[in-house]
């Protein structure tokens, strides 16, 4: 099983490495969305400081969602996905590995660049850690849950817009807890509660969502 995990993650990372522009696009999207808000709302520093966690989290949500289409589309187009499903490896594990690789490529860069955006928004430096930690716990959930939507909309016309309708409502708890943890920390309180709940979400999603994704893949490919 670990062998399967390692092989799939290594393969997907290698594929991402060969097509670096895809990774860069998602990251640039994140930065651009986060930069648009001060232009639209106005440059009042106190206001920007207050909305920073929410803006960064919403931008992360959208950026993660936009790259979801690639989770299975390439393998579906060249037939790899069918071969994987015919293989002996349990599909749930394969799906979990693909979601993990997707997070390494699309989520982890956001975690690393988020403090920089927070700096632009003039967020207090002690909050960088909470922000990065909340993203570190939350963005994998986005990749795992998003897999269900990606599998359900595989190969559909206009799948991208439909995907957002299916996936964004399921993202709401992550958004509320993630942005909430930074807000609570900004108010000078301990944000352990929100972060622990995020971790719980991650554990639950990692345990159950891959099997729903596997079922959805079987339906989409039969």
């Amino acid at each position: 099983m670990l062998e399967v995990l390692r092989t799939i993650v290594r393969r997907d990372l290698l594929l991402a490495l060969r097509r670096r522009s895809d990774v860069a696009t998602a990251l640039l999207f994140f930065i651009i969305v986060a930069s648009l808000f001060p232009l639209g709302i106005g440059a009042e520093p106190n206001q920007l400081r207050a909305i920073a966690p929410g803006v960064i989290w919403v931008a992360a949500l959208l950026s993660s969602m936009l790259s979801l289409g690639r989770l299975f589309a390439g393998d579906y187009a060249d037939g790899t996905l069918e071969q994987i499903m015919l293989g002996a490896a349990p599909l749930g594990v394969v799906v979990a590995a693909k979601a993990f690789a997707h997070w390494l490529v699309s989520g982890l860069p956001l975690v690393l660049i988020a403090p920089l955006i927070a700096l632009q928004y003039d967020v207090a430096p002690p909050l960088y850690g909470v922000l990065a930690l909340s993203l570190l716990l939350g963005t994998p959930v986005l990749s795992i849950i998003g897999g269900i939507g990606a599998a359900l909309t595989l190969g559909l016309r206009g799948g991208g817009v439909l995907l957002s309708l299916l996936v964004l409502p399921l993202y709401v708890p992550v958004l509320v807890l993630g942005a909430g943890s930074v807000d609570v920390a900004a108010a000078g309180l301990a944000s352990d509660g929100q972060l622990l709940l995020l971790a719980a979400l991650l554990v639950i999603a990692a345990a159950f969502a891959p099997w729903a994704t596997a079922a959805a893949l079987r339906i989409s490919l039969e």
Partner: protein
Amino acid sequence: MTAESLKWFWYASPQTFFPLAGRIARVCAALAAILTLAGLYVGFFVAPTDAQQGEAYRIIFIHVPAAWMSMFIYVVMACWAALGLALNTRLSFMMTRALAPTGALFTFIALWTGSLWGRPTWGTYWVWGDTRLMTELILLFLYFGVMALQAAIDERRRSDRAGAVLAIVGVVNIPIIYYSVQWWNTLHQGASVSFTRAPSMAATMFTGMILMAAAFWMYSIAVALTRVRCEIVESE
């Protein structure tokens, strides 16, 4: 297969279910009309004026039953979806399809009447910070998602099964809505009626609400079964 289990699945075939659905739908539609009239009469003319909220509270007779139905229909829909995936029966998926629009309608009514009720009592139509409002809104999006996914897939079998998986995934939201007023103590008031204690309202108010809830039940059954009949005619 014993004779017992054969009988159990007798109405699982769309052909045999079609006439039965028609009969039940007619009875339920009639009951829905009668119960609505009775419920509205009790609600508007018999129930006393609320000491704190005045006449504005009377929207409760629509709001609370609609909110109940919005959650309950989702659970029923997800049960049919699970049955359909497990037993591979066409009729189960048709029930899933038929229930989704009614559920979305009740969710919308619950949100709409809730915001109309919120204006005089809370002083605002909408509160973003309230968990119950948020989760109910997410429920509406979930209904839309299921319907949009079903509509986007042309191939019947895949459309049925994909919608079913999404409906089952969305069930996670239901307990969160139901317990939101207990878990997070925000603006929305606690449950008006509970199974474990006596109702915290006048008996006539309670009667009106139960009558309206029964009316909404009957309406939902009638409409869903009528829609199932349309689905059967369309696909068979």
